[in-house]
């Protein structure tokens, strides 16, 4: 376990020093500016538009960032053979994978936090201030980012091609937001096979539809305890993906 922290630290440094990370943070800020401009067209709903479009921009940038970084996280180390030196030290493969994953998540969360701070500042300039709910939305977005990162990492190890892993990750992203629809279709389906398949897919895919607080912010608030279960869900799903990734990684030769 003691080797997780040095792997975490070097991954974090490596990613934050990459131009791609800085560009994505800058692009996120540009999107926030765009949200500010577009929201001016919303008349009476300006505050809502600023909130929704800003959070959507932050989430989209974080999603693209985490998928892009995690699919290449191990494959690039294998390709550049940096992994030879790391794994020839007393590092458990599980610790290495976890350190790399957490370092990436920290780098993405840092850019997410930067964008969120600016966004919240802009919103407060327009008289909007609900820090508690805003934080809840950010927690859910961070949960989605964590799940997507773990899933992309797993896919990158299972598929060994960055492009294929990225495509499948985005497919799972969509499928995750489709979970309610799949259950609805399963309810309506007359075929037992289709019903079972849809239910199985709706459970296997991450249930983003139900912890997408950013999206149902304006609807009546969820019951107390919902956020706690959402966090448990994200952590458990992430753990499942990471454990599978370790299982695959332990059998790999370099």
């Amino acid at each position, binding site marked *: 376990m003691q080797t997780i922290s040095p792997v975490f630290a070097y991954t974090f440094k490596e990613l934050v020093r990459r131009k791609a990370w800085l560009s994505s943070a800058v692009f996120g800020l540009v999107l926030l500016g765009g949200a500010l401009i577009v929201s001016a067209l919303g008349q009476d709903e300006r505050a809502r538009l600023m909130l929704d479009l800003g959070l959507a921009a932050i989430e989209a940038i974080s999603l693209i960032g985490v998928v892009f970084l995690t699919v290449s996280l191990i494959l690039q180390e294998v390709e550049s053979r940096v992994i030879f030196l790391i794994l020839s*030290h007393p590092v458990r493969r599980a610790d290495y994978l976890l350190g790399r994953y957490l370092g990436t998540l920290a780098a993405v969360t840092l850019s997410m936090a930067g964008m969120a701070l600016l966004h919240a500042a802009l919103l407060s300039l327009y008289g909007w201030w609900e820090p508690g709910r805003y934080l809840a939305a950010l927690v859910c977005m961070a949960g989605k980012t964590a799940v997507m990162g773990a899933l992309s990492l797993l896919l990158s190890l299972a598929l060994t091609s960055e492009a294929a892993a990225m495509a499948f990750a985005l497919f799972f992203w969509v499928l995750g937001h489709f979970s309610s629809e799949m259950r609805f279709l399963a309810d309506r389906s007359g075929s037992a096979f289709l019903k079972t398949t849809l239910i199985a897919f709706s459970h296997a895919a991450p249930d983003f539809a139900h912890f997408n607080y950013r999206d149902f912010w304006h609807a009546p608030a969820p019951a107390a305890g919902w956020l706690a279960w959402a966090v448990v869900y994200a952590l458990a799903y992430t753990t499942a993906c990471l454990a599978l990734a370790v299982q695959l990684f332990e059998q790999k030769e370099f």
Partner: protein
Amino acid sequence: MSAIQFQRVSKIYRRSHLGRTTETAGLIELDLDISRGEVFGLLGLNGSGKTTAIKLLMGLHLPTKGEVETLGRRAPNIEVLARIGYTPEAAYLNKTLTGRESLRLFAALSGIPRAEREKRVSDILRKVGLDKALDVRLADYSKGMLQRTSLAQALVHDPELIILDEPVTGLDPLAIKEVRALILWLKSKGKTVLFSSHDISEVERVCDRIGILSGGRLVKVMRQDEWRGKADALETAFAAAVARTDGVGPIRME
């Protein structure tokens, strides 16, 4: 007492493409015992199995058959890896880090306590002549500097067993002389050194014993007294023992 033991070790690489599986032998029935305090050279042409043997020792590959032991424990073993230093054939280092950060990482991975780490890192970087470039990113290092950093990471934790894969390939004559001096210094400290090379003249100057690999088989093992003082004895033995397996014919002088 053995530092390294290969017991009837075979490594078969399997590759599947379009439903067809091809098998290539990396090592065949390797039996080898290297004693503690010994300097052992692995000689062989490209594709003879030198790097495969080293990767098996480091746990980067798993044997298809047989057993590999390092420092009395079955490889790969996390505790034993802390007592081994390894330098691959090229400096596979993360170029976003500085020399100091890179060494700090490897020192931490090797389990050196935090309190000792800084001193060890500074000492080893001074020892390999990089004390003036501590805080320069590795991306700005020359090839020679990278090679020295790679050597430094293998030695920072004061290992008992040092494994050097092609340590002199591509180095200038001055650097080759320094590597030779380093190997002899390690020997004087009672360390076990295993290194692979194409360079017969280097091997014969520093090794206690050599093993010649050809087509994945250990075809000959020689002691120092079999070549010391006998002009071209090692080269003659090598030429007689190896056969080209890479499909390249000899250069014809007619």
